[in-house]
Each structure stands twice: as C-alpha cells, then as structure tokens.
C-alpha cells in the first residue's frame, strides 16, 4: 500500500502539507489541533511509514513544551492559577493550554512534513520548478539536501579531532569550552568556503546560467488521483476554517 502512496506527485504531497500546516498555524484551539495531529499521523503512516522516527523527534520537544507552559503562566495575567509557590504562580490553566497548543502545532507540522520526505529529492526540486519557483532557489534546496549531511559529518569529524587533542569537552570549565568551540569555527568555515567555491566553479564550467531559462529532462505529470487528493485537501481545509470561524465549532475551552 505504501507504494501506492509513494506514486503521488510531489506537488500533491506539498498541497497536503501546506493545507494541514497552514491550518495548524492559524487555528489556536487544542481540540482542532488534536484532530489535525491524528490526521497528520495517519498521513505520515500512509506516506512515510517510519512513525517511530518522527515520534522520537517530537519527544525532544517535551522540554520546550514545559518551558512554554511555565513562561505563559508567568507572563499571562489572566487565567486561574493551578500551581503556586509562596504566592508566585508557576502554572495557570491558560499556560497549560497554550503550551499544549504549541506542542500539538509543532507535532502536526513535523508529522505532515514526513509526507514530503517520502519523495526522492530530485522530485522535490522538479516539483518546485514546475510550481514556478525560480530554479536557483529549487537548486539551493537540492544542494542543501545533498550537502547538509556532508557538513554534519564534517562537523562531527572536527569535534572528534579537537577532542582527540586531549580535550574532554564535557569536563572542562565553561569559559574554556567556549574557547574550544571558537577554534572549531575555522576548519568548518574553511571547509564550507572551499566546497562552495569548488561547487560554483564546477557548475559554471558546465554552462550554468548560460541563458535566463533552462529546460528540464525530468517532467512531472499530474494524474487524476493527484487532482482528486488536492481537491479533497482544499475542501478539508476550507471545512475546518468554516466550522471554526463561521460556526464557532468546537467552541471555547476557557
């Protein structure tokens, strides 16, 4: 069944992500966001398949969730206190709700983004080009996808190399730690500058920007099932907005 969902055009997948993410960003209601999260988890399971991996990423957000709850509680004058210490309010009902909304919103975005991650990145680039995104920007996305893992592994190598000079980075004082981090800046920057220079030379030596336009070998074609899904997505998004803003459903929590 995964294969059937893989075969959807990247633009269809982008439409799904755009619809769900936009709704999650605009609407600030815990019940609606919970509903969107269920939908996005379902879509992620259908298109991407590796729910465990995405769950692991969202788990890291729990610390941020707790921080947001506390901050909202401290700075929000309205709301009933749920936890106070010595007259100082640490946790309010509004703070709790706002924190939950944040966590749900980010989770929706993460899970729905995995729908696009199921596509090969050449399709992502071509999809952007056929959506009339300038080639230079689509190309930057492609180069980013191609080189970010390389930069990440270089960062790891540089950090390893400096520690192998006898520096135990976990045990040194904070001031010395900062100094060590300032030293890793040089090889990382030098490596990045070198790469960028070599890359741009190679591209220009192969006629990059010879003309204002360029043709494309890979062409993506939308088929009926793509159109159906995009229309359904549009109807779904419209329905959620109408229900929330026009009919006031599901109503206020606080």
């Amino acid at each position, binding site marked *: 069944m995964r294969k059937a969902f893989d075969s959807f055009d990247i633009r269809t997948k982008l439409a799904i992500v755009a619809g769900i993410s936009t709704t999650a960003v605009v609407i600030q209601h815990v019940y609606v966001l919970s509903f969107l999260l269920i939908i996005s988890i379902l879509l992620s399971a259908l298109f991407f398949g590796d729910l465990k991996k995405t769950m692991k990423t969202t788990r890291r957000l729990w610390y941020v969730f707790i921080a947001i709850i506390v901050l909202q509680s401290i700075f929000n004058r309205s709301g009933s206190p749920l936890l106070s210490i010595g007259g100082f309010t640490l946790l309010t009902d509004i703070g709790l709700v706002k924190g939950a909304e944040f966590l749900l919103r980010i989770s929706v975005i993460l899970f729905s983004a995995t729908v696009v991650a199921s596509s090969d990145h050449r399709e992502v680039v071509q999809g952007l080009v056929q959506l009339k995104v300038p080639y230079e920007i689509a190309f930057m996305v492609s180069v980013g996808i191609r080189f970010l893992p390389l930069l990440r592994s*270089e960062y790891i*190598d*540089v950090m*390893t*190399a*400096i*520690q*192998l*000079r*006898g*520096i*135990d*980075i*976990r*045990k*040194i004082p904070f001031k*010395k730690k900062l*100094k*060590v981090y300032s*030293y*890793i800046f*040089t*090889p990382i920057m*030098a*490596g990045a500058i*070198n790469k960028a220079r070599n890359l741009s030379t190679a591209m220009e030596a192969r006629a990059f920007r010879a003309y204002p336009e360029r043709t494309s070998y890979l062409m993506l074609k939308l088929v009926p099932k793509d159109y159906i899904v995009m229309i359904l997505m549009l109807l779904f998004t419209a329905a959620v907005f109408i229900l929330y803003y026009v009919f006031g459903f599901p109503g206020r929590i606080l």
Partner: protein
Amino acid sequence: MRLAFIAADDVSFSYDGRNPVISGLDMEIAARGFTAFMGPNGSGKTTIGKLMMGILKPVSGSVLIDGDDTRQLSLGQVGSKIGYLYQNPQFQIFSQTVTDELTFIPRLKGADEDDLMQEAERLIRLLHLEDKKDIPTFDLSYGEKQRLAIAGILACSPRYLILDEPTTGLDMVRKQMLISILKELLGGGIGMTVITHDRGFIKNFSGRLLKIEEGRIFEESI
C-alpha cells in the same frame, strides 16, 4: 602472553545495525613499530582505524587501548595516548597561524608558556614548516596542511599514531618528505599504523602488513 598496546577481541561493527562491516575481528598491535593496513575501497580499513581509536564503538567484542576498554574512555583520554590523522587534514587545523595551532591546546591545558613555545619550535623544525610560520593556515598547500596537522597531533605527545591514507594528494617529493618524517618518529619510539592502498609507500618501511578483505584480516610481510 604478549601485552598489546591496542587489542581487538572478537569485534563486530555495523553502521546501520543490520549489515556488519566488520565481524569477528581479533588483532593485537604493539606500542612500537610500523603496521600497515591495506585493502580495497569499502573493505573496512578506515572503520577499523576508527574502532582502534574509540571514535567508533564495537557492537560486540571489545577494543582495549593500553588495557582500557574504549567504551570506558573519552576521546580526550584516547587522544592523549594515540594521535589520529584524518585523510583530509583540513578537519584538524583549528587556528589561523601555524604557531597558534601548535600552542593553543597545551595553553588550554595550562602548560608553561616557555615550554610550549619551545616545543612548538621543535615541531615546526621536525615537520619542515620553518618558512610557513607567518602564512595563514588557510593559504598552506595540501602537503603543508598535512604536516601541520601531524605537528598539532604530536603537540599532545601521543605514544602512537594512526594515519588514514596519508599519501592521498601528495606528489613524489612530499611523499618522500612524509616517509622521512615518519621514519624519524619511529626512530624516536612512536609506533604507528598507516591505513593505505599505496603499496609503493609502505615498501619504504619494515614492519607488519595487515590486509583486509571482506572484513577479515590476513597478515603478510611488507
């Protein structure tokens, strides 16, 4: 029983948790002398080098450095015993000047300023970098960067070196220079393992040759 400086005992390793790159590796390396690891691309020689350094930890089995399991050692602790030269020396040059490159770590560790400057001068002479002292490290040639990276490693006084493909990108003259530097270090009591596919290079040394094929090791003479 020979006491090995680096010992691998039934070591297995896999990057993705499914396909083993190394399996059932047994190996003992003495603290002195020259060892070469040779093997085709993808045979696992760099992986073995990183396992020896504790950069990678075995999935099963153990790697001991001077009797200590690499799983219990931090990279800092390993680095004080074994220096590792990456194939790309760029990763190991942290400063913008040659002198600072050789002094900033000892300075961070609290070494005496006169001592560390003296040691830096000694290393600059040893690695033939005298006329490069005032050149920004970014502008050094590939061979010069490699020599500076070796000097930076030696500034930490390791007993042993592991060098990953040190001859890549070096012309004949710079290769000869590297050979004479490594021979001088061997003569001074520093043991080393060179990971390479350059048979011509290792013919300049006497020691052990460990050939790696399909994750297994065969010993030959150089």
